[in-house]
């Protein structure tokens, strides 16, 4: 009994899997909607950090900059600034852009780290 039906079962499973892939990849592929900034591609993420840095260069509001960078994920905000600088150097961003990013990174690094004991 099993020997008789097994090939059909396997054939059906293969066909079912194939149909699932056709449906999932061609008929109704994944659409990226309602995503969050932490999933942004590296270039967009870098541009996001650059916008924060540009804004910070004018208003010097580090709290607001941190708030905006927090949308990129759970890491300390200076990590995102550093990553952005690395990418900007790699792609030869303009000197002004690099200065903005550097200014933001320096300000963020100057903040006390979590758990750090401040001198009186």
């Amino acid at each position, binding site marked *: 009994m099993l020997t008789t*039906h*097994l090939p*059909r*079962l*396997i*054939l*059906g*499973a*293969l*066909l*079912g*899997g*194939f*149909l*699932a*892939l056709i449906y*999932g990849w061609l008929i109704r592929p*994944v*659409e*990226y*909607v*309602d*995503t*969050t*900034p932490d*999933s*942004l*591609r*590296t*270039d*967009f*993420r*870098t*541009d*996001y950090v*650059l*916008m*924060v840095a*540009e*804004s910070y*260069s*004018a*208003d010097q*509001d580090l709290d*607001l900059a941190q708030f*905006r960078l927090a*949308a990129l994920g759970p890491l300390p905000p200076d990590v995102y600034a550093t990553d952005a600088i690395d*990418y*900007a150097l790699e*792609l*030869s*961003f*303009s000197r*002004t*852009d690099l200065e903005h990013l550097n200014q933001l990174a320096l300000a963020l690094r100057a903040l006390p780290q979590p758990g750090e004991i401040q001198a009186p």
Partner: protein
Amino acid sequence: MSRSGWFPFLIGIGLGLAGGLYYAWLINPVEYTDTAPDSLRADFRSDYLALIASAYAATDDLVRARTRLALFSGLEPSTELAALAQQRLAGGFGEFGEVEAAALAQLAADLANQPRSPTSTATRGPSTASTPVPTPLPSSTPRPTPTPGAPFSLASQEQVCNPLLAAPLIQVEVSDAAEGGVPGVEIVVVWDAGQDHFFTGLKPELGQGYADFTMTEGVSYTLRLADSGQLVTDLSTHPCERPDGIPYLGSWLIHFQQTP
């Protein structure tokens, strides 16, 4: 194939589908990586647009702001940014919400003031960060921004009877010394039961320096520019009459101008 022969085949298809979905949803579910700003959730999209405006307010780089806005398909920048500015003001975003609202209003007004040229759209790529935008050449038409430090003063104040207006308005026009409309100027209006503030440039089709506020009949309003101490008092609706004799409520037109 007999009926009994189809049965295991169909069972197999069902198992295949179930296995595929189990793999796709539980074992190796979709992870959103390498997404573009266009796919952001509505609230993050709003924050992103506000950030574009804030960066523009800091750099004055309209070309770069346009490039960033072009990442959002179907975006009507001048109208959507203006609406977003209103939301920022009304949405309890606190102090930085007001700053962002002003930046959004400024960008909306500047975009409406300087329509995108056909050549710039054709050459623009989808990514902004990987292709740094060159510094634009100085524009021959200077933006009508107020001269820093130069105050605005009340130039005129008049009652308006315009039957085409759907409601009685306080219409405000803010211009620089050269009579150019100035967008992004915050206006505060106060009445006995509350206060509100709004910005010029949110209705660019009516002028870069234009803003209006709807009055309620019987209420007396006092108005001032946020950065000015000069008050315009006793603004209230007044009776007007259409040519066919039908009465309606009239508006005010207040004009502030920057002193040279």
